[in-house]
């Protein structure tokens, strides 16, 4: 028995109730505690303004100096007798719309105030329409009266061990078997709920009969498919398209083939040797013994030591110096710890890089 049966005004009543609730949502004033003292008033005004320093906190919450000064200004103005709206208008005139944490409801800002309301209403409407349409589908009612033998079988098997279809491995079972097991689980849950007193006997009977009928139909289907030898019970689902090349069923066949395997090992070995040779060659090309204390192991392969060839390098060097070296001790020749200086070169793989803007922008 559905309580949302429409017509004779019930539907209209529900829609009106919904509209009232949504309107309440939009129109209800925000929570305002009884204001008692100046401190609380300052806090309440400041809570609506955005701090220009910690930009995601309100002036009331922000610990920054500017926020403290703004709270002082608010306090002075409150003591001078200005209203909250006047104080907000003052800040608005100095900083613009940015300073308000809640956009004023006018112009394009109406989108952000009405948008959620409209989206929820649209979502609810769509859901209601969908549910009503799906619930009105002509039921395939004409389930042929279930074979009593099958229903008996259902009752017997459903009482068996616990099986939660959502937990078990889906791969070993066909969709029909999964369906059957799901219906059995639903039957067991139903019986337990009836024992727990959550259903009336009438409801229990009705739902039980429904589930049993469906399970019987599935069992019949399963028996039919088992009898037909061309369709084994564990056939893969019928929805997969023939076009998708089915990977051949036995990957193990590959592993057994030893000529294939040896060949692969050989290729791998050759590749590894070639890689090592290449690595050795390039490393050898790019490093050499130091020629002096100010030299580096890669010599003029760097961008750090030689004359500055591009403005970008010069800018980068200045930025590096400003950031890291201005604070650090100047590099000495005798460095305790003896870590050799490393080049800031392009890696020897010479892969093109996307240029960065000035580094160290905090």
């Amino acid at each position: 028995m559905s309580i949302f049966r429409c017509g004779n005004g019930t539907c209209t009543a529900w829609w009106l109730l919904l509209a009232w609730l949504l309107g309440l949502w939009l129109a209800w004033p925000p929570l305002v505690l009884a204001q008692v003292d100046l401190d609380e008033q300052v806090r309440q005004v400041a809570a609506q303004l955005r701090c220009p320093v910690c930009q995601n906190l309100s002036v009331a919450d922000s610990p920054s100096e500017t926020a403290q000064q703004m709270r002082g200004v608010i306090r002075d103005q409150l003591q001078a007798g200005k209203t909250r709206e006047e104080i907000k208008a003052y800040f608005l005139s100095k900083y613009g719309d940015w300073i308000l944490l809640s956009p004023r409801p006018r112009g394009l800002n109406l989108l952000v105030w009405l948008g959620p309301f409209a989206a929820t209403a649209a979502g609810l409407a769509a859901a209601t329409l969908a549910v009503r349409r799906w619930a009105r589908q002509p039921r395939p009612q004409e389930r042929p009266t279930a074979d009593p033998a099958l229903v008996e079988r259902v009752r017997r098997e459903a009482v068996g061990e616990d099986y939660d279809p959502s937990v078990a491995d889906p791969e070993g079972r066909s969709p029909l078997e999964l369906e059957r097991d799901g219906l059995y689980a639903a039957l067991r849950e139903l019986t337990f709920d009836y024992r727990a007193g959550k259903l009336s006997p009438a409801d229990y009977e009705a739902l039980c009969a429904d589930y049993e009928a469906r399970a019987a139909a599935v069992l019949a289907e399963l028996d039919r498919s088992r009898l037909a030898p061309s369709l084994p019970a564990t056939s893969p689902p019928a929805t997969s398209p023939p076009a998708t090349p089915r990977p051949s069923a036995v990957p193990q066949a590959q592993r057994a083939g030893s000529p294939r395997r040896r060949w692969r090992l050989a290729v791998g070995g050759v590749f590894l040797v070639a890689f090592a040779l290449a690595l050795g060659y390039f490393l050898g090309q790019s490093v050499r013994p130091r020629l002096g204390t100010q030299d580096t192991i890669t010599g003029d392969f760097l961008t750090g030591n030689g004359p500055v060839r591009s403005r970008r390098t010069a800018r980068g060097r200045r930025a590096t110096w400003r950031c890291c070296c201005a604070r650090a001790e100047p590099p000495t020749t005798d460095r305790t710890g003896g870590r050799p200086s490393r080049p800031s070169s392009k890696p020897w793989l010479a892969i093109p890089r996307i240029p960065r803007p000035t580094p160290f922008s905090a």
Partner: protein
Amino acid sequence: MTATVGYSSLVLALALAGWGIAAPLLGARTGRQAFFASARGAILGQFGFVTLASLALIYALVTTDFSLKYVALNTTRATPIYYRVTGLWGALEGSLLLWEWVLIIFSGLLAWIYRDRHPELMPWVLLIFSGVSAFFLAVMAFASDPFERVFPVPADGRGLNPLLEDANMLTHPPLLYTGFVGLTVPYAFAMAALISGKLDEAWILTTRRWTVAAWFFLTLGNLVGAWWSYHVLGWGGYWAWDPVENAAFMPWLPATAFLHSIQIQERRHMLKTWNLSLIILAFSLTIFGTFLTRSGILSSIHAFSSGPVGLLFLGFLAVVVLGSFGLLAWRADRLRGQPELDAVVSRESVFLLNNVVLVAALFTIFLGTVFPLLSEAVAGVTVSVGAPYFNRIVTPLFLALVFLMGVGPLIAWRKASLDHLRRNFLGPAALALAVRLSLFGWRLRDFWPLLAVTLSAFVALTIGFDTAKAVRARRAIAGGRLPAALATLVWRNQRRYGGFVVHLGVVLIVLGIAGSMGYSVGREAMLQVGQSLSIDRFHIRFEGLQASQQPTHRRVEGRFRVTNKGHEIGVLTPALKYFPTQPSPIGRAMFRSTLLEDLYLILSGFSEVDEGRATLKVLVRPLVAWIWVGGAVMTLGTLVALWPFRPRARQET
């Protein structure tokens, strides 16, 4: 050497990722099995190389190898070792490496666990993983290299951002990244199902546990972030509706909606397109989150310094959104089912409502986050959308969700008769109404907190009533004592009771938020030594300032003695920390937390001229501790739902 090892590992991993994308395509083209096997090898190879690169960077950080620019910018010689390790994710390049590492760990696990199963799906799953991995590796290799070198090598580094020097740095980013990356798993399986055309429920059943785990990590990551904001940032709040906070929260909403509506798909084979859309949306929002944090389009305390990375992430976001929905559109006709419902009032329709509310909340938060940009682009006016707006608009949606949380788990599948509703809900509803009336009489009259408490009571009561009936029934069937009956019940219905515990956790969080948002009081005053400030029941006496030099900063502490109606509670010492690299001091608030309320002390400032003067800000926030308790309860609930109680279950996932 470390830099060479690290960078070349990344490049080699990128090459393997390229092969990981090409191999399944070639395999599908030619039909040769070897290609699919080599895709798996590509993933495992990437795992090896990316782990090598991550370990290289950690090694460089731990040994303070300042020839790497990343190390020079994020550590100093004086930084303790655990902060050096967390420096791995302290800045942009390292955080990309962390994301990539977590991603490749997940894909390696999947490749290994499912190596002999789901033969039609796995190649495409691995292709998606290789694709996402290739993107992150390419960004690191070409645009923002963690192994970039600096010359001349500085003698000391610049140091971690002082705000990040906190124990939560060890937990919050890894948890959050695990949550984000975990959502890639159901996404990859969904895409694989679409590509291969195998559109039954197999992928959902397989990935269910992964999705719940990812959802759990996302929840925990957000809660730990709120905890960090509360006890470190020193403004006394836990959620500022900061754009990056919103971006971390937004994937949680479609993930929650997905976890509920797949139950409809499992039982009724309906809503396939909707579920696929939800999971695509969740994954796209995680990419949007990283885009927001790294592009600098919205100002946020979390934003990394930007570069060309923003544009690359935008491109990737475009590919993900348009590509995924394009695939969905291509297979749309095959997904069309025969949706049917037995009745309008049933658990299916309640879950649908749940989805509507969650997606409406998502829309609201997204619109609010993006609106300043929209306003500037369209109207040329710069506006702000902040906490007052979000609190006002989002609260009713979440309260509606709380109500649905009470109704959903109890109402029957398929058809809920009036009698059924009466049996299950009349009791809890009546008691909840009684609670409301008594609170009203006790002078708690404000609309929203009262509604929140009423609905929370309703949910708790429905869970309590249902569990009581079930335990009674089980004892009637099998005898035994109460704890044993409860244990059997939970063991047999993991999902259901895990869900109950999670809902209870959410209810506790709602109570904590309602109490602290509605009834916090605060005062700020300038105090001389010996002067007191009173707020609520507390009396706080200023005892003096104390300056000290710490390894990384100079610290000025204020001593405040707190008494509660005459009983002395103790001395709290909020401080201001002066770091050499920061223009303004960073506050360290101290608070005393009980289950009833939190007393929060912030040292706003002090007079440099007059030694004995300080400005103190005090907040009393009721019920905040329940938020963290609720988080712990949600953790427990998720464990209950996921724990492999049954040996049979060990076969899968």
